[in-house]
């Protein structure tokens, strides 16, 4: 049928074309850039350049650069801590809201969701002030109790960043889970109640299994989000001596491209980052699917 074919083309065509232009093509171009290099000749200021094929050299360079591999491990470590914390917090908040009496629930839910409306870099500016000694009321209050917190120190800065990310997205993830909780049939609880199940049993036996899909979804998005950490460390960098130019893979690629003008190596680093994110997300989905069967 011609009409059908035309319909498919019209409905799917724009998306496919845009997908190709803004996702597939850049990846292809990055792959091309990542296997080439610039060769120079001529005097400074008036030189000429040519492009040569170098194979996987840039990948080898990136992977043998301890700073870059350290940045990969850093975001992996970050994700391993951040993702569970975020998901547990979001799930707990959702379950608490679900259990609380009707009054105030809407207010609390809105409050938790509020930070989602603040862009990450603005949230980082904000928390940056709250982390700065001499400016931060948090540190003032802590010092009344004799506590000496250093949010910007070498050992704490990664978790100070984790706090910003958690603050911003926990409420959003909570909302997704709340939505799923709402869709559970209330009869289930009643039946469980009659069978003598405790509130805790209802949570672990009924609610948690039923909101699993929402938890899976938020987990995948959190993984993808944490691995691309960029704005937060960039904004906090002037405040602390502890954030290097290669603190996260994205920062490393950005500096490689625009501070060192090595776009080819930067392209290789971007490709590696995308690969890591894909591997993690797919591995997680696979794990979930296997244990779900």
């Amino acid at each position, binding site marked *: 049928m011609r009409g059908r074919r035309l*319909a498919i083309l*019209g*409905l*799917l065509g724009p*998306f496919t074309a*845009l*997908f190709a232009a*803004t*996702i597939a*093509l850049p*990846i292809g171009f990055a792959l091309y850039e990542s296997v080439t290099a610039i060769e120079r000749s001529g005097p400074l200021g008036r030189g000429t350049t040519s492009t040569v094929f170098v194979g996987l050299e840039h990948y080898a360079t990136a992977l043998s650069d301890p700073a870059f591999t350290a940045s990969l491990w850093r975001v992996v470590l970050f994700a391993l801590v951040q993702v569970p914390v975020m998901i547990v917090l979001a799930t707990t908040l959702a379950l*608490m809201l*679900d*259990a*609380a009496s*009707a009054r105030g629930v809407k207010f*609390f839910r*809105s*409050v*938790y969701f*509020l*930070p989602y*409306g*603040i*862009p*990450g*870099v*603005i949230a980082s*500016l*904000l928390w940056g*002030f709250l982390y700065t000694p001499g*400016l*931060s009321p948090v540190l003032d*209050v802590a010092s009344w109790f004799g506590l000496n917190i250093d949010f910007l120190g070498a050992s704490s800065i990664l978790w100070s960043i984790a706090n910003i990310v958690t*603050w911003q997205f926990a*409420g959003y993830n909570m*909302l997704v889970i709340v*939505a799923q909780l*709402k*869709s559970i049939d*209330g009869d289930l609880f009643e039946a469980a109640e009659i069978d003598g199940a405790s*509130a805790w049993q*209802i949570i672990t036996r009924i609610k948690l299994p039923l909101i699993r*899909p*929402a938890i899976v*979804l938020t987990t*995948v998005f959190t993984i*993808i989000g944490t*691995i*691309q950490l*960029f*704005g937060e460390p960039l904004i906090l960098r002037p405040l602390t001596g502890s954030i290097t130019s290669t603190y996260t893979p*994205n920062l490393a*690629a*950005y500096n490689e491209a625009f501070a060192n003008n090595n776009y080819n190596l930067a*392209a290789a680093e971007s490709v590696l*980052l*995308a690969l890591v994110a*894909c591997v993690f*997300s797919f591995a997680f989905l696979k794990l979930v699917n296997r244990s779900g069967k």
Partner: protein
Amino acid sequence: MKNPRTPSAASRVLLTAGLAVAAVYFLFPVYWLVIAATKSTGDLFGSSGLSLSNPQLLTNIRNVFEYNGSIFFRWVGNSLLYSGVGALVATVVSIAAGYCLAKFTFRGRDALFNIFLAGVMIPGTALALPLFLLMSEIGLVNTYWAVLLPSVISPFGAYLGRIYASAAVPDSLLEAARLDGAGEFRIFFTIVLRLMTPAAVTVFLFQFIGIWNNYFLPLVMLSDPDRYPLTLGLVSWQSVSDRHPELYQMTIGGALLSSVPLMIAIVSLQRFWRAGLTEGSVKG
């Protein structure tokens, strides 16, 4: 509430206390922002961050509005343009694609869907640099297009659209419309889009926030402040404030002014997030 068990008074107090503690955590930075936005530069550094000190909110707001030829409004406009247009186009395009993938069978459909799904997994920032290289190749760097074009695609939207369409668009309705002689595009724009509104709103909001919050892409693409979105603009103020201390106050004022409307919007629209996302995750 659906929960039939009435919790004891003690556990209810405990629960509310827990919720309140969490609320303090989420609200505190916002509270600080509001207080800080009322202060002069001197008081910002010289007085406690917890309480008011010579509030001059209106002066500060006027400074933000007037600074550098009212460039703040330009940034607001740019952000609205990038987010509004980007999200609108992304929504229509990806909902159409999702519907098509759900309701039409053709060769290569599942392969295509899987490719799109892989697109969901690719971190946006990993694409920013490749996009920059590409855009500089075709001479679009530092134009509105450089930020707008990559914003009009939402693989997640197509994914959600497909799931939602299979659940919410009955085949019988489509068949009936076809029998009435309606063309496919008319069916899409008059029937399908209406049925898929909850999913479309979710995709729109999701994309809008995504673009609004984006920093890496405009950072690498734009060098002319007249084209900056708010995020980039405010950070540019902050990053020169070590030499121009009056800009600390501007950054804080600008952050407040740009966050408040969005926070209000977010909170009042939260049911749309729930509506679409449940569908997405239930079947996911």
